[in-house]
């Protein structure tokens, strides 16, 4: 392997990337989201999706769900780096446990008339998407599901007059009676 003239050891790493969904329970205090996001940008990690909301107001707990990609070594690093932050209670790798459900909500605006309009409505029905706004020339659909399902729905709407999409990002929870 050729080395550029560098004071650092430059090398290629060929491990394949994996996609993982992490659930992070944090103390809801000023700056906590900035810490988490700063960690990802500062250390060059990827964020594919990020959702955050307070989940237990009395205990000041928020839950952050992050979908990230990286080599297995990088994913392990991300978990440890998150876990050692002072306001972080727990980090759970929802992908590793293989017992989790992931959902995303999207609102999809489609504009069209005639056959396109009928077709959009028929597909929406097949995907169990709801109409939450309608005009004579448009619909807004609300669809819930995993990321693949939503991507598929959006792809189908594209030729039928897709105008815009708003997505929440992924939320995840473990199956069974136990909490995280």
């Amino acid at each position: 392997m050729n080395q550029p003239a560098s004071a650092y050891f430059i090398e290629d790493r060929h491990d394949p990337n994996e996609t993982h969904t992490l659930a992070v329970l944090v103390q809801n205090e000023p700056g906590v989201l900035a810490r988490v996001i700063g960690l990802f940008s500062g250390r060059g990690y990827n964020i594919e999706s990020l959702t955050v909301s307070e989940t237990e107001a009395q205990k000041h707990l928020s839950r952050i769900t992050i979908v990230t990609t990286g080599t297995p070594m990088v994913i392990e690093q991300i978990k440890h780096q998150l876990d050692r932050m002072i306001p972080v209670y727990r980090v759970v790798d929802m992908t590793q446990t293989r017992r989790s459900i992931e959902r995303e909500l999207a609102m999809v605006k489609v504009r069209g008339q005639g056959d396109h309009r009928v077709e959009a409505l028929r597909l929406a029905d097949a995907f169990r998407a709801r109409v939450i706004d309608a005009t004579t020339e448009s619909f807004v659909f609300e669809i819930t599901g995993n990321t693949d399902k939503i991507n598929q729905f959006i792809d189908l709407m594209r030729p039928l007059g897709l105008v815009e999409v708003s997505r929440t990002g992924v939320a995840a929870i473990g199956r069974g009676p136990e909490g995280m």
Partner: protein
Amino acid sequence: MTDKSHDPNQMTGAAMIVRALIDHGVTDIFGYPGGAVLPIYDEIFQQSQVQHILVRHEQGAGHAAEGYARSTGKPGVALVTSGPGATNMVTPLTDALMDSIPLVCISGQVPTHLIGNDAFQECDTVGITRPCTKHNWLVRDVNDLAKVLHEAFYVATSGRPGPVLVDVPKDVQFATGTYHPPRKSDVHRSYAPRVKGDAMQIRKAVTLLANAKRPVIYSGGGVINSGPEATKLLRELVEVTGFPITSTLMGLGAYPASGKNWLGMLGMHGTYEANMTMHDCDVMLCVGARFDDRITGRVDAFSPGSKKIHIDIDPSSINKNIRVDVPIIGDCGNILGDILQVFKAEAKKPDIKAWWQQIAQWRARNSLYYRKSNEVILPQHAIQSLFEATRGRDTYITTEVGQHQMWAAQFYGFEEPHRWMTSGGLGTMGYGLPAAVGVQVAHPDSLVIDIAGDASVQMTMQEMSTAVQYELPIKIFILNNQYMGMVRQWQQLLHGNRLSHSYSEALPDFVKLAEAYGGVGFQVHKPADLDGAIQEMISVKRPVLFDCRVAALENCFPMIPSGKAHNEMLLPEQANDEATAKAFADGKALV
């Protein structure tokens, strides 16, 4: 309504800060006043328990606090104003984060109602310092201040130590609230660093150690951070097992350099025997080190045949650069104690005579060799002379960053921990002089020497004025080669000898400079004059700038060239131009 006017715990935010410092046993702080911290300075003025050292630049306060912390094991404290005061602290905070130094920085902030208004001397201090602290806080309510200050000290000093910052707006400093002494509930429930190692893992480690044929112990700064007990246990482990031991730059002194199992420092400028032992070992015990890129060389060729045990208090250090077989998370001292106990109960000293014979052959290569001269002072010789002159004395060494730092690490023998203060992770030029100020404040009667380079030392030279003001007799021993030596060395090796801006065309007269500050200056050119001048320097009880003129073009060897493994070191006798060019040939192809 109860009358709170006689409650001794009712006080202003500024008074709380001074009270908290006292409650945490702080006796010395380093700082620089400004608009947003004047209430705190007013409190400092009216008491005598906490001594304040006025620096000349906030960066100096930060490094002085680091030097203080590293030489005592106690947290260092810095006090700075808002805006530029805080931004000037960014370098020391980052330095302390990289080297795991407990540092508590208190910064003033503009009043809460002005935050976000681009007020005079306002900056987003917590935003700027978020990635360069272990944690930081902006205190908006005076009644939160005591809790935050106590938590700050706990976070800085517990687990993997590090810098913290508490940003206190000026109105919070003026406001009156309730103070309470430190208590357990002050700390986030989410923060609980693990101390005790897993018993199963410790057993696995002992089995590996007991059956090793070619073992090595690789220790780091974590052992020193863990405290005197860890150092004692590390030495005992070496004694009980008979294993060879090497150390990172940060870990020097945990095992004595005069110890018979000592291999010298490892890594890019480590000894041949240390690096070869690491490369060829079959069991590696890493204690409180983090497989940094200056240590490992080429990662995929790093110690290919060994089982690796890694003790670290920070889980994120495990498997970050190098995959290890037996990770043990917890405090070094605690885990070393457990390992020793199990080892002594169940294992016996493995026979590694053949391994020591192999190591003796590597040692015989004499990788720290250099050619002495009667005409010109070799920098290695200067360090050796300094070491000989200070051996057996109560001495603390700080350094700047560059060739002189590596030579100091190679040629100055450290016998005890907390005696060696150097910027390892961040590599901060300008660290050593203010760090020496901090060390001397903590140890007023000790000999404190900053081994410096002519380029580095000019980055924080202004702190000479601090040393003179507080009668701190620090010795700044400058290996003056008129170059940024390490930059030049890389340019020679990797950039076709094009010495772009690494030569200082104009250097100050360091003797006159010392005198201008009110200190003492020395200048030495000849090897014959060196020892006498060093003796004289030591006997002077004032701050000294010692201008030691050394061979200008000497380079630092041995060396692992970039992209090479531990067993591909470049030794000094091989480091002629042709061999050097060949060793770096891969690099040249892409220049």
